[in-house]
C-alpha cells in the first residue's frame, strides 16, 4: 500500500530524513519508534505534504501512485489520513461543518454525490459514540477549547468519518490519560484493523502498543530506520532504551 524508498527530506535546508525505507502492506499495523529528533514527525509531515518539508531524494508510492505528485488534499482524498500530534484549532468553524466539508470534498474527488445532512449526522453520531465523544462537542469549533485528550479523540472521530485506507498517526498517545488512551486505542482497532487498511503509528512509548498491537516495529534514528522487528522490539526498547537497542 505504501512504499517508501530511500527518502531524504529537509526542513529549512536542514536534512532530517536520510534514506528512509519502509514498506507497508494492506492489513498491517506498523509502529515507528525513536528518540526525539530522529525524524518521526517529519516522516508524517512529508508523507502528508506539509509545506516547508522538502523531499530532496527518494520516492514514496501510495497504492502505486507517486505520493509526491499529489497535493495534500488529494493525498487525503486518495485515502491517506495524517493524525496530528498537535491538532490545529480553527476558530469559527464547527467540527461538524469541517468534517462534512472534508468528507464531501473527498467524495467529490471520487465522483461520488455529497452526503446529505441527515446521512452525515448519522455517520458522525456513530463514530463519536465509538470514541465516547459527546455530539455536543462536535458542534463546537474545531479543537478550540478542547483538552489535549479531547483533541486526540476528535482526531479519531475524524478518522472514523473519513474512513481512510492508510492512517499515519503521529503521537496519538501523547497527552492522553489512561482511559482516553484505551478509548483511542480501541477506536484505532475498530476503524483501521481491517484487511484492506493499514496503520503507521508514530510513538515514543510502548503504552499505545498495548492496545494497538503492531505487526512490525521499526526504530528510527537520525533519519533512517536502523532496526526492524516484531512487537517484541517495542518491549525491548522500553527496557533497554533507544541507546541500548540501537547501539
Amino acid at each position, binding site marked *: 500500500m505504501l512504499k517508501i524508498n530511500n527518502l531524504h527530506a529537509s526542513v529549512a535546508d536542514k536534512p532530517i530524513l536520510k534514506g528512509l525505507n519502509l514498506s507497508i502492506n494492506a492489513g498491517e499495523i506498523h509502529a515507528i519508534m525513536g528518540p526525539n529528533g530522529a525524524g518521526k514527525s517529519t516522516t508524517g509531515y512529508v508523507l*502528508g*505534504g*506539509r*509545506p516547508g518539508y522538502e523531499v530532496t531524494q527518494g520516492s514514496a508510492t501510495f497504492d502505486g501512485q507517486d505520493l509526491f505528485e499529489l*497535493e*495534500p*488534499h488529494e*493525498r*487525503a*482524498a486518495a485515502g491517506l*489520513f*495524517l493524525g*496530528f500530534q498537535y*491538532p*490545529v*484549532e*480553527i*476558530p*469559527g*468553524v464547527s467540527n461538524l*461543518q*469541517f*468534517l462534512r*466539508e*472534508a*468528507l464531501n*470534498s*473527498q467524495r467529490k*474527488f471520487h465522483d461520488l454525490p455529497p452526503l446529505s445532512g441527515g446521512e452525515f449526522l448519522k455517520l458522525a453520531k456513530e463514530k463519536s459514540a465509538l470514541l465516547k465523544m459527546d455530539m455536543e462537542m462536535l458542534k463546537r*469549533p*474545531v479543537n478550540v477549547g478542547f483538552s489535549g485528550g479531547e483533541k486526540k479523540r476528535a482526531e479519531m472521530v*475524524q478518522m472514523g468519518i*473519513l474512513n481512510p485506507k492508510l492512517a499515519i498517526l503521529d503521537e496519538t498517545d501523547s497527552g492522553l490519560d489512561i482511559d482516553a488512551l484505551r478509548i483511542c486505542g480501541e477506536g484505532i482497532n475498530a476503524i483501521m484493523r481491517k484487511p484492506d487498511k493499514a496503520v503507521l503509528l508514530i510513538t515514543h512509548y510502548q503504552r499505545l502498543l498495548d492496545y494497538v498491537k503492531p505487526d512490525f516495529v521499526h526504530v528510527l534514528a537520525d533519519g533512517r530506520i536502523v532496526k526492524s522487528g516484531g512487537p517484541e522490539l517495542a518491549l525491548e526498547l522500553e527496557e533497554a532504551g533507544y541507546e541500548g537497542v540501537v547501539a
Partner: protein
Amino acid sequence: MSNLPTRKAEDWRYADLAALEKLWPLPDAESITVAAGDSFARAIVNKGGVVRLSLTLEAGAKAAVHVLNSADAYARIEIEATLHEGADFTLGGVQLASGAQVAEIVATVRHMEPSANSRQILRSVAAGTATASVLGKVYVAKGADGTDGQQSMRAMLLDRSATANARPELEIHADDVKCAHGCAIGELDANGLFYMAARGIEPARAKALMLQAFIAEAFDGAEDEDHLQAAAQAALEALL
C-alpha cells in the same frame, strides 16, 4: 465640502482619488434621526461608489447598521452616528477587496451625552493589490460620563501585495468612560490551512471557510443576518 479632497484630509488619506473624481460632487449623506426610545436597523450592501449615512440617536434610541462593502471598483462607506443619553449603536462591517480595488469604511461615533453605548466590529479582507482601510473615530464629549465605546478592527491579507489600513481613534473629554479598541492585521493561519488540506478540503474552499469564520462576527445578530452572511459568502468565493 465642494472641492475634491486631497490626501492631506485624514478621512481621505487612503481613498482612490482618481475614482472619486468621477463621482464628485458626492450627494449629501442620508440623514436619519431615531426618536427617543425607538429602534432602527439598516443593512447596506455597497457594490461600488460612496455610501453616506448620518444617524442621530435621541435619548434611549437604538440603532444597528451592518454593511458589506465589496465591488470591483472604488467602494466607500461613511457612517456617522451622534449618540444622546443612553443611546445604543452597533456597527458591523465587512469589506472584501480584490484586484486593484480600494475599499474603505469611515466611521465616526460621537457620544454627546452620558451612558450611551457603541460597538463597532469591522473586518476587512484584501487580495491582489487591493487596499482595504478602516478609519474609525470615537469622540466622547465633556460630561458624557458612563460612555461605553468599543471598536474592533481586524484585517486579513490574502496576498503579500495587498494592503490593509486600520486607524482606530479615540478622543475623550469625559472622565468616567470605558473605551476599548483593538486592531490586528494578519494572514490566514498556515497550520489551519494545512490541517484542512490534510482532511481533504481543497485549498480555495479551506480559505473560504476560514474567512467566513473571520467575518461572521461582524454580522452577528444583524436583523438580516442570513442574507448578509450569504452575500458575503458569495463575494468571498468570487474573491478566491
